[in-house]
């Protein structure tokens, strides 16, 4: 690990705090009814939206109505994304004349973008028309993030209510306000900044540019019908081709890039995602993108503190998240900076110096080097973003294990927009429950008694994703449809499958991208993992919110366990790590840990 990496981490965390603290105050206002001073113009649009949405669009909802509205809205969104992909050839803004997306891939992508996963089985610049990118994918980047914020608002209201009713707010109001007041203005700001750095934004067809040095490459020869020409042995005939031009993919990238980060979505416009220079051109754009990923999840911690009337509660949750995040980041930074023993033997210079970053540069960009690639990897998997600026598949074994573990902790270390905080609050409930058992008192969190019903729902929330991950992985490694997609041999191949299901069920979306996931088997299996990983968590969570809302808060007494101090933060970290370790250590032992040992003994 280099000094530069440490400085980068510290600057990143401080900048984040400076930006997120005021945004948290603002988010608390957006989550409460009423107009926000100085934003009358937005309020006008808001009222027009509610008028068109009908008389029930602003009425208070109990948790069941809230959940139903959420599910219908998201299911309709999935249908819409599927339809646009299947019809794109007949729709405008398709200068490269891309054909309709195959049914299984379109289904996977529709679920993926609705579930805030943005797993990509397809390659953006060779598959999706500009219209599909904008109307289907960019929109779901907004809506899935707004859905996450809505759910966390509902849960916070469950804690902060005085117990007079079981209402937890109104879903339509929550998504409309989250989009109009938060996501859209921030996206406009970030998109403009990213464009200034060099992120492209246009509707041109792909551009042909002249090369300085012509390129010769070999390709399988095809006949007039587009079939491969075979020689006498039945092998494809290769032909040498020299080209003097390069084709540059274009598109409305900046507008999608901004919300991709801010909404912790992570679905790249291009196949290489944020490693692509048109998505992430400079070290500064890279820092801005990392800040954008953590901005709303961090601000929501402060909003939570304000909405429950005790900012220290927000600090405690944020403190637990930050401690886990920093430890994990240091591990991946150290792992990636080390020299690859195999390359060492070949005499390759991997030492960090004034002239190079050194370290494991396979699958990394020169402008990001080791420090900014490792930090990005930790950020994108701590948050359920899943954008990548380096190929995680080529990380060193322990370096690649960090993103895997951060996802397996349930995406609660900052986590997704909304989903990170609601996930962490569920762990907080579990932590007070265990503490309550230890000291023999009825557990309370923020004045609300935690009882059998809440604990049942908490168990479901916590157990759904590990079940999906481990069952999915077990099925995939048992059938040839699962194992034939693997790119790397040995333990690393197992890691690719484990990573895919971990990423899908926890709604992250990054990949050990060597795996060929655009097959009917993986498209279906991963879509199932993504859908239930998202909505089988949200529904019991809303049930908790509804149950808590109806409870009269207990006054603070000498026997109340404080949930803002160091003891509680330690307890919370302990519970998160314990659940993660118990679920996943056997699987990790078969993947990255074995691989690490093999690397050490490799000749």
């Amino acid at each position: 690990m280099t000094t530069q990496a440490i400085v980068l981490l510290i600057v990143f965390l401080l900048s984040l705090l400076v930006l997120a603290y005021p945004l948290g105050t603002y988010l608390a206002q957006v989550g409460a009814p009423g107009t926000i001073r100085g934003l009358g113009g937005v309020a006008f649009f808001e009222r027009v939206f509610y008028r068109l949405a009908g008389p029930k669009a602003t009425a208070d909802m109990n948790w069941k109505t809230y959940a139903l509205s959420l599910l219908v809205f998201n299911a309709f969104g999935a249908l819409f994304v599927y339809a646009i992909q299947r019809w794109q050839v007949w729709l405008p803004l398709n200068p490269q004349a891309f054909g309709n997306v195959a049914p299984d891939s379109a289904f996977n992508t529709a679920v993926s973008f609705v579930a805030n996963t943005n797993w990509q089985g397809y390659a953006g610049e060779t598959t999706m028309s500009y219209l599909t990118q904008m109307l289907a994918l960019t929109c779901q980047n907004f809506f899935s993030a707004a859905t996450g914020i809505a759910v966390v608002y509902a849960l916070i209201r469950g804690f902060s209510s005085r117990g007079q009713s079981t209402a937890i707010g109104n879903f339509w109001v929550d998504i409309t306000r989250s989009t109009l007041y938060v996501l859209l203005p921030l996206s406009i700001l970030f998109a403009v900044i990213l464009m200034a750095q060099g992120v492209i934004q246009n509707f041109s067809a792909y551009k042909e540019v002249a090369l300085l040095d012509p390129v010769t490459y070999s390709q399988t020869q095809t006949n007039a019908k587009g079939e491969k020409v075979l020689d006498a042995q039945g092998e494809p005939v290769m032909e040498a081709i020299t080209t003097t031009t390069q084709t540059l993919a274009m598109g409305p990238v900046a507008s999608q890039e901004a919300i991709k980060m801010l909404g912790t979505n992570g679905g790249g416009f291009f196949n290489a995602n944020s490693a692509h220079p048109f998505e992430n051109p400079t070290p500064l754009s890279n820092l801005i993108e990392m800040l954008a990923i953590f901005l709303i999840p961090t601000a929501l911690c402060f909003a939570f503190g304000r909405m429950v009337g005790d900012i220290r509660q927000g600090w405690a949750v944020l403190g637990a998240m930050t401690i886990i995040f920093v430890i994990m980041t240091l591990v991946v930074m150290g792992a990636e900076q080390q020299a690859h023993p195999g390359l060492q033997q070949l005499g390759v210079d991997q030492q960090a110096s004034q002239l190079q970053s050194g370290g494991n540069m396979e699958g990394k960009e020169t402008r990001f080097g080791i420090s900014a690639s490792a930090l990005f990897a930790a950020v994108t998997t701590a948050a359920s973003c899943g954008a990548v600026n380096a190929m995680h598949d080529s990380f060193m074994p322990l370096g690649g294990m960090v993103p895997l573990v951060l996802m397996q902790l349930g995406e609660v270390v900052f986590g997704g927009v909304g989903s990170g905080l609601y996930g962490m609050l569920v762990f907080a409930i579990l932590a007070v429950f265990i503490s309550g058992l230890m000291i023999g008192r009825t557990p309370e969190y923020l004045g609300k008694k935690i009882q059998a019903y809440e604990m049942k729902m908490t168990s479901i929330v916590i157990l759904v994703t590990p079940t999906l991950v481990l069952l999915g992985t077990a099925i995939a490694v048992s059938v040839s449809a699962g194992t034939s997609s693997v790119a790397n041999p040995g333990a690393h191949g197992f890691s690719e499958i484990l990573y895919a299901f971990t990423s899908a069920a926890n709604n992250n979306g990054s990949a050990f991208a060597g795996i060929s996931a655009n097959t009917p088997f993986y498209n279906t299996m991963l879509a199932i993992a993504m859908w239930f990983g998202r909505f089988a968590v949200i529904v019991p969570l809303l049930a908790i919110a509804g149950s808590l809302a109806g409870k009269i808060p207990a006054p603070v007494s000498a026997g109340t366990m404080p949930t803002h101090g160091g003891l509680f933060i330690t307890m919370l970290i302990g519970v998160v790590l314990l659940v993660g370790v118990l679920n996943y250590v056997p699987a990790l032992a078969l993947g990255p840990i074995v691989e690490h040992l093999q690397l050490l003994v490799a000749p």
Partner: protein
Amino acid sequence: MSVLRPTLALFFLLTLLCGGVYPYLITGVGQLAFSNQSQGSLVNRDGKVVGSALIGQSFTSPHYFWGRPSATGPMANNAGASSGSNQGPLNPALIDAVTRRIETLRAVDPGNTLPIPVDLVTASASGLDPDISLAAAHYQIHRIARARELDESRVQQLIEAHQQQPWLGFLGEPRVNVLALNLALDELKN
């Protein structure tokens, strides 16, 4: 069915706003304020577009600086289909590829005994990396000076003129843009 009307109304209103108005607004801002960046930071020479400052090109002639290896198909640096190699650290194909790249570099520059910098023999993440480390640029001075019959110090000066250092010492890496460097090399000749 009280769910249906708000679903449809809000879905299409928000779609219009986020999927229509918003991207066109950003495009408009881009055309007005960032006309070069929004179009791909294209580089011109003698009135002809010769690439993007942000996208790496493939260089294989001895008289040019070579960029990062690229794993895109069917040709290297295919900016219409970005991709990394996704080879794991223990994949024999990775060691094979690195070995081949070392052999190529040694064969074209037999007198050069410097250790080869890691970024010159490992594939970039996007397959389109426009930069190489300063170490990788320095490694190639010997070959280029010979191929162009230039003084090594002349090539060295060119690197120094184009190099980028980490901003404030922590943001970014010591690097140089390969296309810019090669365009400057061609200028020297004329």
